[in-house]
C-alpha cells in the first residue's frame, strides 16, 4: 500500500480535474439541515462537515428505482430492449466513510451470491471509492462492534485521513485506487514517514459481542424479545432505505401505452405488504415478525449463507427512526438475555 499526502487545496483542484475528465462526482452535499450524497456539478458544494449523511451511498450502485429492461408491444408482437450499461457514467464516490465503503461488500454478496445481477454489477464496476477516515463520531456509531473501524480500509480504493486542518494522509489501497492515483499523482506529495494514522482517528467503543449476538438470536427465535423491542415500530421502512446494505426490492411495471419499462425499486421487509400472498395469507403478518426478519437476516442468515454480516455499524437506521428504535441498544440485549 502506498502512503501519500494531499493538501485540501490540491484535493479540490484534483476533484475539479476529475470532473473535467468526464468522471461524475458523487459526494456529500449539505442542503438545509440535511447532508446527503448527490451528483455534484461544483466541488464548492462538497460538505466535509457531517458525521454521517442521512442516506448511504448505495444508491449510486443500486438506485431507488431502476429500469431493468424496456418493451414495445404491437398487436401480437413484443420487442424487448435489454438493459443498456453503455449509458452508465464512470463515477468517483468521494467522502464516504469506511462504514459505507465496506457496505458495498454485503450489498455485492446479496446481488451475486448465486446468479450475477447485471444492473448492480455494471454500476458497481464503474465506481471508484475514495473514503474519508473518521475523526468524529456520534452516539449512534458502532462500526467497531461489527468488525469495522474509523480507519477501516476494506472496500475503499483510496482512503484519506484528515491529519491537519488543511491536509490528508492518502492510502492507496486497491489496483483501481493505484490506477487512479497514477493518473492524478501530480496533485499528491510524499507523506512524512512518521505520520501515525491511528492518532487522528476517533475512538469508537465496542458495544456488544457480535458472535454472541448471532448465536443468541437463533436461540431466541421464538422468544418475546422481538415483540418487546418492536412494540413501537410503525413499519415505515426508513431504516431500510437509509441502510448501506439493505437490498430488498420490488419489481414493478412502468407502462406507458404500448411501451414501458420493467423497473425495480427499493422495498423493505418492514412493510406488511412485503410478504402478503395474493390469497390473503401472510407469513410475517405482525411487525415483530418483520423486525425479527430484519435483524435475523443481517446478523444470522447473511453470516451463515453469505459469510458476511449485513450491517456495517453506520448507525443510520437509528438516527432515521421516527420512534427512536436504537439498533445497537437492541443488539446489546442479545448479550444479556
Amino acid at each position, binding site marked *: 500500500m502506498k502512503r501519500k499526502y494531499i493538501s485540501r487545496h490540491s484535493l479540490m483542484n484534483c476533484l475539479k480535474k476529475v470532473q473535467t475528465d468526464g468522471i461524475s462526482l458523487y459526494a456529500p452535499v449539505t442542503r438545509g439541515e440535511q447532508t446527503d450524497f448527490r451528483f455534484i456539478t461544483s466541488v464548492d458544494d462538497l460538505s466535509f462537515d457531517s458525521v454521517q449523511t442521512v442516506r448511504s451511498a448505495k444508491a449510486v450502485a443500486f438506485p431507488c428505482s431502476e429500469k431493468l429492461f424496456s418493451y414495445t408491444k404491437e398487436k401480437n408482437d413484443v420487442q424487448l430492449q435489454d438493459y443498456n450499461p453503455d449509458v452508465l457514467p464512470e463515477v468517483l464516490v468521494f467522502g464516504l466513510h469506511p462504514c459505507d465503503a465496506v457496505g458495498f461488500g454485503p450489498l455485492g454478496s446479496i446481488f451475486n451470491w448465486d446468479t450475477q445481477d447485471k444492473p448492480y454489477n455494471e454500476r458497481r464496476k464503474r465506481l471508484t471509492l475514495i473514503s474519508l477516515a473518521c475523526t468524529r463520531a456520534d452516539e449512534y456509531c458502532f462500526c467497531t462492534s461489527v468488525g469495522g473501524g474509523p480507519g477501516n480500509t476494506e472496500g475503499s480504493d483510496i482512503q484519506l485521513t484528515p491529519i491537519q486542518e488543511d491536509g490528508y494522509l492518502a492510502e492507496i489501497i486497491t489496483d483501481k485506487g493505484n490506477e487512479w492515483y497514477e493518473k492524478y499523482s501530480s496533485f499528491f506529495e510524499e507523506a512524512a514517514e512518521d505520520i501515525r494514522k491511528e492518532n487522528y482517528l476517533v475512538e469508537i467503543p465496542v458495544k456488544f459481542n457480535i458472535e454472541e449476538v448471532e448465536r443468541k438470536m437463533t436461540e431466541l427465535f421464538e422468544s418475546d424479545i422481538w415483540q418487546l423491542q418492536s412494540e413501537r415500530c410503525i413499519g415505515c421502512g426508513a431504516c431500510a432505505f437509509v441502510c448501506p446494505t439493505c437490498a430488498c426490492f420490488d419489481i414493478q411495471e412502468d407502462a406507458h401505452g404500448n411501451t414501458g419499462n420493467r423497473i425495480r425499486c427499493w422495498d423493505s421487509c418492514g412493510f406488511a405488504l412485503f*410478504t402478503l400472498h*395474493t390469497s390473503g395469507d401472510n407469513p410475517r403478518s405482525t411487525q415483530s415478525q418483520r423486525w425479527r426478519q430484519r435483524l435475523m*437476516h443481517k446478523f444470522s442468515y447473511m453470516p451463515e449463507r453469505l459469510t458476511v454480516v449485513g450491517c456495517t455499524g453506520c448507525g443510520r437506521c437509528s438516527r432515521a427512526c421516527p420512534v427512536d428504535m436504537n439498533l445497537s441498544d437492541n443488539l446489546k440485549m442479545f448479550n444479556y438475555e
Partner: protein
Amino acid sequence: MNNNIYLPYLMIIEKIVEEAPGVKTFRLKFKDEEEAKEFKFKAGQFGEYSAFGEGECTFCIASPPTREGYIECTFREAGKVTSTLAAMEEGETMGFRGPFGNTFPMDEWKGKNLLFIAGGIALPPLRCVIWNALDMRDHFKNIQILYGAKSVADLVYKRELKEWEERPDVQLTVTVDPGGETPDWKGEIGFVPSILEKLGPSAENTIAIVCGPPVMIKFSFPVLDKLGFKSENIYTTLENRMKCGVGKCGRCNVGKMYVCKDGPVFSRALLETLPAEY
C-alpha cells in the same frame, strides 16, 4: 456478466385450455428457436410469467420435462397480472423467466411407490411430476393419486383425470367437498384428509408428495403420520410471495432458506427444522 437475469424469454401462447371457472392452462412456445433448444428444466421448478404492461407473477411449470418444445402453466385468476393473462388470446406474446428453484429428487425415488395428494389448484405442480413419472413408468412401482377440489366444476385437467383413471398402472381417486357433487358424480365425496385415511395407502417403500391449500396440508400430515410415513418421505412445495425468483429481492425466505432457491420443493423433514414462515 452479459446475461440480464431480469430479461424474460418471449413466449407465444400456442394453446389455451379452460380448466375450470377462473382457471386456464397456457401452452407456451419459445419465440426464438435457439432459446427453445437450450432450455432445460426439471420437475418442481417454477418461473416468472409476464404480461407486458402489467407485470410478473409466479407459477410452477406444469408440463413435464419429458415433453420437449413447450412449457405449460395452469393458473387461477387471482389479481392484477393473472387477470391480464387470463384475458390474453392464442397467438399473443408473453414473457417467461426461469426455470428457477430446486427440483423433486426423482432419481432418488426410483424403485419406490409414489403417492400424490393434491387439493384445488395445487394439482399443476404435481401434474408435472406425475407425467414425468408416467413417461418413465418402469422406474417406479405403484403410482397412486388422490385429488380433491371444492366441486366437480373446480376439478382441473379433466381430460387427463379421465386418462389416468383408464390406465391400469395408475390408481386414481378423485373427491369433491361435501355439497360440491353433481347428481351423476361417481367419485368420492369428502375432504382430502378423510379420503386419504379411508384409502389407507401403505407407507412401505412409498414417497408421499402433498400439494394443496394450507388447511389440506395441515390435516393430511397427521393422517400420513398415522399411516407410518416418515417425515423424510413426505414432500411438498411452498408458495411464498416472490418477485425476483433468484434469491435477491429478499421476500420469499423461510428462516435462512429462500423458497426461490432452496425450494419450492421441501421435504417435511427439512420443514420441521425451519420456522413456520409460510
